[in-house]
């Protein structure tokens, strides 16, 4: 029982990271009908930036904030410069562009920072709490994720820009008629997604060790989590990510050794999707005839 609770809790911590990345994916999908396959690699690259800053002597949280700012600007720039040319092209072209970005970021990171595994500092002391039920690190990760989610929720709910972004995602033409610069809203969306991804990367790096291939598996689980929750639902992304984290942990501990863990976890998720083809919270894509 104790082990079960332990695994559930550490699964929640992993799930918090999947949830973050899943949220980034959902944000971009709602705005552009596009799954950004490069989200993981962008997050990895941001994490390297944070690592560079920390190595240069900056205190952790200063490096964290600075990295978020840089990632935000980077995400905006990528949308404006690299994604905009294919915004009105067939969806597949945009998908290929994101796959291309994935490769570029991965290769650039390997070239600039080498493929050696690096240690990444954690801001949270590594202690266990509540009778070895959970670690402070896990609690810290969940805490940071929670704060980030609350800030995002407040932003979208209570600010004019947040409202404009929601409108731009729902009905871009109508939003333009209200004077909303939809293009800029898209760019901000990509910027936010990049910042969220950076947070996820920085949280996971102490555990997985920093290397260019760090986020590959994370992206896969995040993608699965986003779909499990419903690709159009931010709440679903968070719930889905958490479920995937716990499932992955439990499968790995009780069912099968690490090699097939991924396959089995994905299989379970797909099984759920068979019964709920639009995810747990997703809305069916309404078709107009």
């Amino acid at each position, binding site marked *: 029982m104790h082990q079960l609770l332990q695994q559930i809790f550490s699964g929640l911590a992993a799930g918090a990271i999947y949830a973050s990345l899943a949220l980034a994916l959902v944000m971009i999908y709602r705005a552009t009908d596009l799954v950004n396959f490069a989200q993981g690699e962008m997050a990895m690259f941001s994490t390297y930036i944070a690592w560079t800053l920390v190595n240069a002597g900056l205190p952790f949280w200063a490096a964290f904030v600075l990295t978020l700012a840089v990632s935000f600007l980077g995400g905006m720039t990528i949308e404006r410069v690299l994604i905009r040319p294919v915004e009105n092209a067939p969806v597949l072209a945009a998908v290929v562009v994101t796959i291309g970005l994935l490769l570029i970021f991965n290769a650039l990171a390997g070239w600039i920072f080498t493929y050696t595994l690096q240690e990444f500092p954690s801001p949270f002391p590594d202690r266990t709490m509540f009778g070895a039920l959970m670690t402070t690190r896990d609690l810290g990760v969940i805490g940071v994720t929670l704060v980030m989610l609350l800030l995002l929720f407040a932003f979208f709910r209570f600010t004019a820009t947040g409202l404009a972004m929601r409108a731009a995602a729902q009905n871009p033409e109508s939003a*333009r008629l*209200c004077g909303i610069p939809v293009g800029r809203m898209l760019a901000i969306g990509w910027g936010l997604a990049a910042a969220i991804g950076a947070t996820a990367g920085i949280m996971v790096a102490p555990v997985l060790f920093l290397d260019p291939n760090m986020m590959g598996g994370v992206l896969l689980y995040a993608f699965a989590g986003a779909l499990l929750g419903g690709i159009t639902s931010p709440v679903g992304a968070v719930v889905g990510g958490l479920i995937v984290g716990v499932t992955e942990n439990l499968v790995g501990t009780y069912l099968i050794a690490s090699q097939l863990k991924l396959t089995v976890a994905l299989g379970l998720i797909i099984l759920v999707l068979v019964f709920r083809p639009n995810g747990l919270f997703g809305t069916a894509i309404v078709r107009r005839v």
Partner: protein
Amino acid sequence: MAPILELRAVKAFYGQSEVLHGIDVAVEDGGMSVLLGANGAGKTTTLRAISGMVRSEGEIHFAGQRLERRSTEAIAGLGVAHVPEGRGTMTGLTVEENLRLGAYTRAGRPDAAMQRMYGYFPILGQRRRQQAGALSGGEQQMLAIARALMMSPRLLILDEPSFGLAPRIVEDIFAIVERIRREQHVAVLLVEQNAALALELADQAYLLETGYVVMSGPAKTLADDPQIRRSYLGY
């Protein structure tokens, strides 16, 4: 009075096809002009050309500015509030949020303007926290107009506001629009299939057919024209 909106020799294109062949339309400052015509005549296309939503040629003058080659959002920012076909309400947002959206281009807090809208459309005040998608057709039309008015526009463009609505609601809506026009001094460009009602309210009228303006003049004159009466007014 100089017209606040003037189209001169405007052509519009969908892809390679030319669908408007050089039309002239004007709206007086604070006045109301109506575009009449059958389906496919080019009425909605004209409105879309004004808002920069289709490729066009020719001159579009608005309040001393030229609108051609400006983006839709820039044109909205200049004071053109366009309520499109199908209303364009954000069904996933609440009534209140829809109104707030209208105020995006205006500085300052929107609360006073929102209260004014609830004054014109009490039902919106009652339903302010409901999802816009849950509103009836007539209520959504009111919401769409209210949202447009939140922009403090100098020109209000209405594309078939009576579409799919019961006659009683249509009368109510037009009464409110007329009241707003006088009180707020907003010019109105109206596209309507309901010719009788439109010609009663408007100053100027234009009849479009397959992309040409085939008749234009004071609304009263067109209302008395025997051809119009036979084809569009039913008697």
